[in-house]
Structures are given as structure tokens and as C-alpha cells.
């Protein structure tokens, strides 16, 4: 029984990382006032780009992850152009980009014949003296580099949003774009920048799934994690650290499903696979029941800013 828990918890950082990075990326772009539903699609782009890079260029997995980030950022320019420049309804634009990416990645993966070619992936790094601590050592100090990097990345983004001048301006654009515009901030530029920067983290989340966790490309392999990340942002009230906590929670839930089967406990397999989605909805209901009124969302979330259009 002890082994069961240690094996399970040692896997949690790996299963939680995609949720954490995707939610953090979404927080950056939504703090600028853009309702960003593109995560599911951009994670797929990151996943296929990362795996394609490690298959074709034969490079280090870290290079593959960088390619994944770049690819998702590039693709997010499409979304940014639609919602920031052309003022398309942000829900329609987000959904279109997701389905565009689903179609495109399915096509690329099949035509380039990247399906079912396993890759080596990223090695785990044991931080030696600490990794020998019983129980905690394996869970916290025997992970891959990206998991370790998550902590400084969260510190950096949290500092950027809360303490830096640029982050303050970004939040101002998200809270009240008209006032920010009057104060001399270029609203469109801030929003495009936030979308592109945030999307690189969403791409990292997707790349992590294909390059590090699964080590394989399967069409549609993100499997709804992007939508769960969108829900996580609401749960975290658009703040980085609660998003990390939520990601760990979902990492625990996702990680326990295969463990239970492996432990020989007989449960209906497909009903077990529902748990992450059911849990997400349950968490959303709990959030709704707890916070009556203001939920912490940026003031101008989902509203395009048109200087010439007075409201």
C-alpha cells in the first residue's frame, strides 16, 4: 500500500506539469483581457511540433520543447490577429483556432507519418543527496528538468504580474482598456504580446505531453487537458500560485487512474477515465458555490477594445 502511494505521488509532478504550464500561459493572456479558449488546440500544436522536431532533427528533447513553444506562439498569432486586430467574437475565434489546430495537427501527423514512432524522451535528474530521503526524495527530487524549471517559471510570472511595471500595465489593459489607452498604453500591442507569450507556455505544456510523458504522437492526444486548463484558470481566479495548486490536484487525479488498474483493483476502466473531467466540473461547481458575486476575473475579459467605438 505504501508503494502504491509513493509510485502514484512520484508521477504527480509529471502529470501536473502540462496543466500547470497551460494554465499559467492562459493566465498571462487572459490578464490582458482576452478570453483565451485556444489551449486545447495550441497544446496539440506544441505536441506535434515537439515530437516532429525530435523525430526529424534528432535533437535534444529540450530543443524539441523549444520548438514546441515557438510553434504554439506562431500559431497564436492567428488568434491574436483575429481577436485583437479584427475584433472577432473571442469565443468563436478561440473555438475556430482549436478546431483549426486539431485538423492541422491530425493532417501533419498523418502525412508526415509521425504516428506511433516512439522517442527517447527526457531523462529524470535525481538531485543526489536529497533524492535519497525516504518517500519525499523520490516524489520531489527525482524528476525531469522541466518539472524543476516549473518553480522558477512560476516565480518569474508571479513576480512579473504583481511586481513589475510591465505586468502592472498588462493588468491595466485587462481591467480597463479605455483608461489604459487614455494613459498612453498601446492596448493592441499589449494584448498581442500577452497572447503570444502566454501561448509559448501552452505550447510547452503540449510539448511536455508528447516529448516527455507519452514519448509518442497520437492524433488528438491532448484529450481535453486544454479545456481542463481553461477551467483551472477560473478555479485559480487568474492567479499563478493557485493555478499550480489546482494543477497538482488534477495531476493527482489523472495519475491515480492507471495506478488503480495496475494495483489489480477491478474497476470499470472507461468510467475511471471520466474522472478528470468529472472532477473538473465538480471543482467548478464548488468554486461557484463558494464565491457568490465577483470571481476575480479581469474587468474587460472577453471585450474587444475599439478606440473609435465609444461605449
Amino acid at each position: 500500500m505504501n508503494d502504491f502511494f509513493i509510485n502514484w505521488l512520484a508521477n504527480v509532478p509529471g502529470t501536473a506539469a502540462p496543466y500547470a504550464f497551460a494554465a499559467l500561459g492562459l493566465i498571462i493572456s487572459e490578464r490582458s483581457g482576452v478570453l483565451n479558449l485556444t489551449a486545447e488546440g495550441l497544446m496539440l500544436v506544441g505536441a506535434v511540433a515537439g515530437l516532429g522536431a525530435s523525430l526529424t532533427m534528432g535533437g535534444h528533447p529540450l530543443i524539441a520543447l523549444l520548438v514546441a513553444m515557438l510553434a504554439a506562439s506562431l500559431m497564436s498569432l492567428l488568434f491574436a490577429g483575429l481577436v485583437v486586430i479584427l475584433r472577432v467574437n473571442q469565443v468563436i475565434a478561440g473555438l475556430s483556432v482549436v478546431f483549426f489546430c486539431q485538423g492541422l495537427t491530425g493532417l501533419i501527423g498523418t502525412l508526415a507519418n509521425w504516428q506511433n514512432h516512439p522517442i527517447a524522451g527526457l531523462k529524470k535528474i535525481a538531485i543526489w543527496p536529497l533524492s535519497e530521503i525516504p518517500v519525499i526524495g523520490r516524489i520531489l527530487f527525482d524528476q525531469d528538468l522541466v518539472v524543476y524549471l516549473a518553480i522558477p517559471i512560476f516565480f518569474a510570472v508571479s513576480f512579473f504580474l504583481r511586481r513589475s511595471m510591465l505586468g502592472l500595465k498588462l493588468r491595466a489593459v485587462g481591467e480597463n482598456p479605455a483608461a489604459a489607452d487614455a494613459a498612453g498604453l498601446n492596448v493592441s500591442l499589449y494584448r498581442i504580446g500577452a497572447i503570444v507569450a502566454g501561448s509559448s507556455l501552452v505550447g510547452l505544456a503540449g510539448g511536455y505531453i508528447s516529448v516527455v510523458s507519452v514519448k509518442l504522437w497520437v492524433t488528438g492526444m491532448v484529450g481535453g487537458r486544454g479545456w481542463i486548463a481553461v477551467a483551472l484558470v477560473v478555479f485559480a481566479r487568474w492567479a499563478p500560485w493557485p493555478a499550480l495548486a489546482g494543477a497538482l490536484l488534477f495531476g493527482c487525479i489523472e495519475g491515480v487512474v492507471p495506478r488503480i488498474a495496475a494495483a489489480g483493483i477491478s474497476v470499470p476502466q472507461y468510467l475511471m477515465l471520466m474522472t478528470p473531467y468529472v472532477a473538473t466540473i465538480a471543482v467548478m461547481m464548488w468554486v461557484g458555490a463558494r464565491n457568490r458575486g465577483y470571481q476575480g476575473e479581469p474587468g474587460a475579459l472577453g471585450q474587444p477594445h475599439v478606440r473609435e467605438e465609444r461605449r
Partner: protein
Amino acid sequence: MHDVAMTMRENSPSPKPPPRRGVGRFTLDMRQALSPWKQAGILAGSLAIGLFISVVILDIAGIAPFDLVRELAGVFNADSLRSVLVRAAPLILVGLSAGLAFRIGFWNLGLEGQMVFGGIGATAVSIYGIGPESTRLVVMGIAASAGGLLWVMLAYWMKVRFRVNEIISTLLMNYIASYFLLHLLYGAWQDSKTAFPQSTQYQPFERLSDIGYGINSALLVALAAAVVAGWGVHLSRAGFYMRFISANPNMAKVVGVPVRTISIAVIALSGVAAGLAGFVNVASQEGRLTQSFFDGYVFSGVLIAFLSRNDPIIVVIVGFLLAVLFVTGQTLQVFYQIPFTMVQLIEAIIVIAVASSEFLIRHRIRWTR
């Protein structure tokens, strides 16, 4: 403002032009109105651009434009036309479902989940043999409607009771529904003869059959639903209320529009339409539940509703056009090994192109110095 500046300049002794700064910039004007012809022109232009991009992508994927034209033309022989008409039925129904819900601002993106429960409801009636053979299809339709209705009302209940955003909840409920379907198809409902993950084939009297001229009775169900929805939206008092609610829900409530009742009714009908889509899909095509019969219908529904501007009558037209795309996509899949996700890609390109064109309809771009 402008006039004041003009008079001031006229009064000043030497009217020197202000120094020119830079090369100028783009400004956006809101258009007050645009003639329908120009609107149609912009729409047609954007559609053409979207289709051109799709053709280029298909060309890169290995289908020369000439072959594409041949395959598209091939859709209009009797055999393919029949499958277009069969395909159109569920597409029209999901388009109606999405369009109705979007009309009152409820983002029902759970069309696939509602189709799944529609299919499950209909199949349950078939498996347990409920009702006499002569009315079996009717009972199946009712069970399918109930399935779709329950699944959408769950999302609505979570929205009003716990303020769970329906975009997220309905999308996640698609995954839950599809896993529940797999649970049945790999478990209790698995066809013992084939051992594939699919249910036992329906009896002949449980299938929607052709009524002549290659027209399937599934299409009649869809057209009837479109007529009812068209009446409701355009002619009935409820349709007027729906426009009021989408324009300004608070105002509607204040002046006494039964917002809650109308919302519940419209969302319920949206679920019924999606459930029926699941029913006509399984009962007219495979005649059994399969693990992916609902694939790709969420975005198809969104696309149809978006292009038809939630108008049930135009939904029928767009539904037919999309059915042509679906059948062509299947042909390309079989003969050119192009994955079916291509259809989804083209759908997304078309929506993006048309959504972008609204910008030109609503704004005038000018270059000012």
C-alpha cells in the same frame, strides 16, 4: 469639435498648414449601415479566400485542384447524392441545436455529448424492445430526445445553480459522454457476434429507411425540425422574446419577458435537436451504436449556426453544403489517404474567413495623415 477647429483656423491671420508628422496612420470608422449587396460581396469574397486557402492546403497534401473538382463533381451522381442527403440530416439537426442555443446566448458546445445520449436512448429502446414494432421508431425518437435534453439541462442547471460556465462544462461533458459510450460498447452492449465495440444491429423496423428518390426519412425529421424552429424563431411570440433576451436580458426581465421560462424551453429544444441528431445518425447510417458516430459534430454545429446567423431556414442550406464537404472528405479519405481531420480544418478556415469579413462589414478603414 471639427467645426470649431475650422473656424479657428479661418480667423487666424496666416493659415499655415500644420507640420506633417510621420506618414500617417490607419483609422477605423464604425459604419452606420452597409448595403446588402456590398455585405454579400464582402461575404462572398471572404468565402472565396477561405476556399482558396483550403484548396492550397489540399494541394500540398497531395490532391491536385483538378482532382478535387472531379471528386466534388462526383458527389452529384445518384449514389453519392443519397449519402449527402443522409449526412445532411444530423448536420441540419446539430445546426438547429447550436443556432437555437446561441440565439439566447447559451454556448451549447455539448452537441456531441447530447448526440451520444440521444444514440444511447434510442439504442436502449431497441435493445430492451420497448413498445410494439409499428411505433418502435417513434419511441426511439422520444428516448433520444430525452437523452439529449437531460444532458443539456444538466449543464444549464450547473450554470444557474453554481454559475459554471457552460462553454467549459458542455465541452467536458462531451468527453464524459464518450467514455460512458465506450463503457457500454466494451461492456454490456457489445455485439456478441462481432466482438467489435459496437452494439447489435437494429431490426429493420428500427431503422430510418429511404422513402424513394434516394431521400431518407431521416431528412424528413430534420426538415420538420427546421420548419418548427423557423416558425418559432420568425413567427411566434417566443421568437420575439428570444431576440429581446439576446439583445438585453436585464431589460427583457424588467419589462416582463419570461426570461427564465423562454431560456429553459429554448435550451431544452436545443438538447432535443442534438439528441435527435444522434438518433437519425445511428438509425439511418450504421443502424447500430459505434464508438465514433458523433465525431466532428460540435464544430459542424457551430459552423452551421455561425454561417446561417442562427436562422433555422438558412441552417438547412448550410447543412446541405456541409454534407457535400463531409461526403467529399470521406471520398478523399478512402482514395487519397487524406485523414478526415481535413474536413475539420476546412471548416475552421471557412469560419475564420467569414468571421474576419465581419470586420470589414462593421468598420471602414481609412488612411489618415
